[in-house]
């Protein structure tokens, strides 16, 4: 049972890593940042997987995962000194509702308009959750760094 879970997560880890690194190549990220991009996206995706396996609602899963992803990207920025866009853009892709877009179109064109509407609304909800996640993550990072700055200034005085 535990072995199964470990195996499943390792498969997810490897494929998410592969996918995100490939996407950082699609967006021409610097070659030295591939691993950092991959790590950002993979941690975001694994957070989503854990939250989903614990039975959380899809929207909350996406929200938590995107928040974690944004914070990780922010931390890597401090270490690697690059624009945060470099890590955030490829990293967000596992969470973007590509499957939702597909299922909406699929049900629409195979004669299940009601299912299509359900899927469409779910897709928009997921996109909204991602939005909220990025905003929340950015806000936490912003607040944290503001406090750090103030703290440093106080120490100087």
């Amino acid at each position, binding site marked *: 049972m535990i072995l199964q879970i470990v195996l499943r997560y390792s498969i997810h880890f490897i*494929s998410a890593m*592969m996918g995100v690194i490939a996407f950082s190549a699609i967006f021409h990220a610097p070659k030295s940042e591939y691993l950092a991009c991959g790590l950002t996206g993979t941690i975001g995706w694994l957070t989503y997987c854990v939250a989903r396996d614990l039975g959380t609602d899809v929207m909350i899963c996406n929200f938590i995962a995107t928040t974690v992803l944004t914070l990780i990207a922010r931390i890597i920025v401090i270490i690697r000194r690059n624009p945060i866009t470099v890590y955030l853009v490829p990293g967000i892709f596992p969470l973007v509702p590509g499957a939702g*877009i597909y299922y909406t179109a699929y049900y629409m064109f195979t004669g299940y308009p009601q299912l299509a509407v359900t899927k469409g609304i779910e897709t928009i909800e997921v996109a909204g959750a991602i939005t909220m996640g990025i905003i929340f993550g950015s806000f936490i990072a912003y607040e944290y760094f503001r406090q750090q700055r103030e703290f440093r200034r106080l120490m100087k005085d």
Partner: protein
Amino acid sequence: MEEFENKGKKIREDDPVGKQIPDHVGVMQLASLMGEILLSNGAEIYRVMDTVQRVIKACGYENHSVYVLSNGIFITINEGGPDACTSVKHVPIGSVNLEKLARVNQISRNLCNGYITREMAFAGLQEIKQKVNYTDLGMALAYAFGSAGFDIILGGTLFDSIAAFLIGFGLYYVLKFLSGYGHVSRFPSNIAGALFVTVFAGAFAASELGLSFNNMVIGGIMPLVPGYAITTSIRDLFNGDYLSGIIHLLDAFLTAACIAVGVGVGIMIINYVGGGTMPL
């Protein structure tokens, strides 16, 4: 007013282009080139504005004003003075290139800290602007591995992912072929890309190897999904650049709609060819 006009004329007569330009015009050209590279390669508005302002300030001009939209940069230096100058630059929305972004960021940081001179920065920027840092095969493989990887994490099996690998590889060449026709809008190329993915996934599904049509399409369309537009629009909105944020948000919605149309047309074609008996 007349005095300013005369003075402007005089500068132009005395200094033909390329011979010698006033200092603040040189600074403006540098800042505007920097902003252009950042904006056309996918930086958010706040970063472009911040970088341009920092560079102008680092070169010693306090009196300046910068306004950036998602496809234009407006810079004025020494407004109201006799040597006021303004630059208006149209920047068409290009493809995202994160390496150029990172390198321009590096140059601007070095310039502001005084590690490099203005001339070195300008030369560096021009080199970055010209540079092509990828090959077609590399990009096609990136599309292929991206499709394959996301196919597995979104529920596909190993064999689905191999099929998605081939579809992704072909998708890059389809998009490249379409972009060869001069200025093609992104909408038809997105529809055609999604159509290509769906039809080939249908062909793989019809081969009776037990492949899942849904998973192959989901993996295949991942490179088309507007992840970049969503991210940038949210960050622009978060920074208060509502106009540019809304433009990217609209872009994201329309791209998603185009993908849906492409997939839908593909399914109709598969149903028509297979007479409704295809295992979708």
